[in-house]
C-alpha cells in the first residue's frame, strides 16, 4: 500500500568520539538497538534495512554492510544494502528508506549510518575523506577538504567581509550546544580566543574550525504513516525529502561562496512540504568546516547572501534565536563519522520535535530541517520533518 507520509518512530545513536575499544560492528549494532528499542517495533516487523556509509572498505576493511548489519543484528533475511554519497551517505540512506516506504514496497525500515575512522592513520583518514571530492583534479594535487574550504572562506571574506571571528563563532556556538548533548564527541564549551589561536591548517581554516575524525553510528526506524501510532504517541513525520547534485569539483562552479545544490534542494523541499523558511523552528546544517555553516545559513535562506556572519553576530542561530542551527553541536562538536552524520542530524531533530532534547531543547519546535552535504556541495540532501 502506498503511504501518504512516512513516519519516524525510533531514533538512537552510539556515543560519538574516538571509540578505541569498539569495532564498526559494535557501534553500528549499538545504534540499531537503541533506535529499535526507542521505537517499540519488534525486530520481526522490520522488513528492510539501509546503511549509510562512506568508506568502511578503506577505514576498516569491511564492505557489504547491509548484510553485516542484518546478520549480526539478528534481523533474519530481510533485504539490505548500503548507500554511498560521500559525506551525505547518511542522508542518502534516510532518503532511500523514505522512498522505499513511500512507494509501498516496504512498511518498516531500519536506517543505520556508521563510520569508524580512528583505526587508520590521520593521513589515511584524510586521503579517504578526500575522495569525496574530485580526486583526479583536486585531491591528487593536494587540494584536501581543508584547502578547498579555505578557498571558499577566503572568497567569502573578500566578497562579503566575513571575518576569522565569524568562523570562530560557529565553533563557540556549536560547542556550547554539544555541552548538553550526552552523545557528542566534545561535550565542552570552547572560548573564542582559544579557537582564534588554534593551529592553522589551511589559512584561514584552523583546527578548531574543522570537524574531527570520529567513530560513531546513528539509527532511525521509519514506517508507514498509518502504522506509526501503533508504536508511539509521538511520531515525527518526514514532510519532504529532496536531493540535488552539483559539479564534483569546486573549481567548476560559477560561485564558490554558495552551494547551488543546497539552494535547489532546500527550495524544492520547502515547496514539497508547503512551508516557508520562517516555518522552520530548528536546523541541522552540515558544518564540516565552520565556513560551511555560514554559507549554508545563507543558501538555506536563514540569512541573506553574504550575511551569514552577521547572523552569528546577532545570535539568531543560537538556541533561543529565531533560527537555531546545530543544537546537537553539529559536525564540529558532536563529531563527524562521515556516513553516520546525515542520520545523526535526523536523530537530533526527532528529539527536538518530540521535546526530548533536554537542556538544548528549542521550545515548541514543530518543524525542522536537516541539510546533509557531500564533498564541497556536490550532493545536497534535505529533509524537513514535522510533528
Amino acid at each position, binding site marked *: 500500500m502506498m503511504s501518504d507520509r512516512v513516519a519516524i518512530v525510533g531514533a538512537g545513536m552510539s556515543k560519538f568520539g574516538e571509540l*578505541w*575499544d569498539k569495532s564498526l560492528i559494535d557501534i553500528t549494532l549499538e545504534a540499531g538497538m537503541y533506535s529499535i528499542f526507542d521505537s517499540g517495533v519488534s525486530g520481526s516487523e522490520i522488513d528492510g534495512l539501509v546503511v549509510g556509509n562512506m568508506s568502511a572498505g578503506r577505514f576498516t576493511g569491511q564492505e557489504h554492510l547491509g548484510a553485516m548489519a542484518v546478520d549480526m543484528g539478528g534481523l533474519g533475511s530481510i533485504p539490505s544494502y548500503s548507500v554511498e554519497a560521500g559525506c551525505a551517505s547518511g542522508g542518502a540512506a534516510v532518503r532511500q528508506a523514505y522512498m522505499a516506504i513511500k512507494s509501498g514496497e516496504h512498511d518498516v525500515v531500519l536506517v543505520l549510518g556508521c563510520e569508524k575512522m*580512528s583505526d587508520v592513520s590521520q593521513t589515511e583518514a584524510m586521503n579517504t575523506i578526500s575522495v569525496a571530492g574530485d580526486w583526479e583534479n583536486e585531491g591528487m594535487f593536494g587540494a584536501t577538504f581543508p584547502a578547498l574550504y579555505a578557498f571558499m572562506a577566503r572568497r567569502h571574506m573578500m566578497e562579503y567581509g566575513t571575518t576569522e571571528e565569524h568562523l570562530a563563532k560557529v565553533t563557540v556556538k556549536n560547542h556550547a550546544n554539544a555541552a548538553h548533548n550526552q552523545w557528542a564527541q566534545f561535550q565542552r564549551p570552547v572560548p573564542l580566543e582559544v579557537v582564534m589561536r588554534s593551529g592553522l591548517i589551511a589559512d584561514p581554516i584552523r583546527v578548531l574550525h574543522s570537524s574531527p575524525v570520529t567513530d560513531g553510528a546513528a539509527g532511525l526506524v521509519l514506517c508507514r504513516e498509518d502504522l506509526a501510532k501503533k508504536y508511539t504517541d509521538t511520531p515525527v513525520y518526514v514532510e519532504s525529502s529532496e536531493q540535488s547534485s552539483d559539479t564534483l569539483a569546486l573549481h567548476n562552479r560559477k560561485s564558490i561562496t554558495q552551494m547551488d545544490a543546497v539552494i535547489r534542494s532546500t527550495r524544492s523541499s520547502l515547496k514539497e512540504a508547503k512551508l516557508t523558511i520562517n516555518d522552520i523552528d530548528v536546523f541541522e546544517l552540515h558544518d564540516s568546516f565552520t565556513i560551511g555553516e555560514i554559507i549554508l545559513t545563507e543558501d538555506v535562506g536563514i540569512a541573506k547572501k553574504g550575511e551569514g556572519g552577521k547572523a552569528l553576530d546577532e545570535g539568531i542561530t543560537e538556541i533561543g534565536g529565531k533560527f537555531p542551527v546545530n543544537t546537537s553541536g553539529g559536525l564540529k562538536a558532536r563529531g563527524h563519522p562521515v556516513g553516520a552524520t546525515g542520520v545523526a542530524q535526523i536523530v537530533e531533530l526527532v528529539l527536538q520535535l518530540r521535546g526530548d532534547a533536554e537542556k538544548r531543547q528549542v521550545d515548541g519546535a514543530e518543524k525542522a530541517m536537516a541539510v546533509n552535504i557531500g564533498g564541497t556541495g556536490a550532493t545536497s540532501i534535505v529533509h524537513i520533518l514535522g510533528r
Partner: protein
Amino acid sequence: MVAAGIAGYGVYVPRYRIKTSEIASVWGEDGEKLAKGLGVFEKSVPGPDEDVATISVEAARNAIKRGNVNPLDIGAVYVGSESHPYAVKPTGTIVAEAVGCSHDITCADYEFACKAGTAAIQTCMGLVKSGMVKLGLAIGSDTAQGRPGDALEYSAAAGGAAYVIGSENLLATIEETYSFTSDTPDFWRREGEDFPSHGARFTGEPAYFRHVGAGAAGLLKKTGTTIDDYDYFVFHMPNGKFPVAMGRQIGVPKEKLEDSLVVRRIGNTYSGSAMIGLARVLDIAKPGSRIFVVSYGSGAGSDAFSITVEDAIEERRGQVPTVDDYIERKTYVNYSVYAKYRRKIKALS
C-alpha cells in the same frame, strides 16, 4: 620477609642539547608554540661515541659510588632499553665488567619500551627479597630514535639511570610495587627498522593514560594509601604534557609533580625517563618523604612503586653528580650536527 629498596642510585645524561625550536625550524613548524604545547623545550643528544652501554656504565658507576657498595656484592645486572647497541649480545655484560662486578652474577637485557628499567628494578627486588642475591643492579637507559620530521623527533632523547637494589643501608625503601599490563599496540619498532612507528592519538587515552592510571589506582588499592599520603609523584614523561594531565586526572597537586618533570629540559629518555625523574626527587627529598612512581612502557604496561626516603640519603649526597648537575652541563648543537651525531645522514652510515 626482608625489605627491599634503593641502596644506591645514579644517572647520566649526555651533554649535547638541541632546542625544540631548532628542530622545528627545519620542518617549518612554529617552534615556540610546539615547545609549549609539548612541554619539551630542549632534549639531550648522545655524542657520536655514546650509546646505551656507555650511558649505562656512567649511571651505574654513579649509583655504586653514591651507595658506597662493593660491586663484588652485586649478584644480578639487568639493563632495560629499547636501543641496545646489539640485537644479539647483551649490554648488561659490558656494564657488569666495566663497573667491576664479579663473574658470579646473573645478567640479562630487558626490553619493554619505556619501562624496561623499572621492570629490572622489580626483578632485583624479587631476587633480593628471596635472598638469591645480596645486591641487584637495575638500569634503564636509552638513546631513543625519532624519525626525522616525525612528532617523536622533538622528544626522543638520551640518558639513563641506575639503581642498586638491596636490603641493607638503604637510601630509600620500596614498600610495594604493582604492575598493570595489556596487549595494546600504541608504539612499536619491528626487527631491523631504524625508527619506531606509533598510533598517533591512540598513544594517549587507551595507552598511556589507561595504563598509568590503572597502575596508580592498583598501587593505591594494594597499599591502602591515598594521593594525600605522598609528597612527590613521578610519572613516565613521553612529553611534558602527559604526566601533568595524568596528575590532574587523578588529583595530584601540581607542586607534588613539578620536581620530577625533567622532560622539559632533556626530553623523553625512554627507559631512563621515570627513573631519572625519581632520581631528581631523591636528590632533594627529605628523609621520611614518600614518593609515588609510575613508569609506562608502550605495548603496554605500567610499573608503580611506593617509596619512602630514609635518613641515610643525606650523608650520601654530594658524592656524585646530581640530575640537575647533568641537566645544567650542556652544549647546544644545531640540527646539522645533531643529524651527524644521530647518524641520520644516509651517506655517512
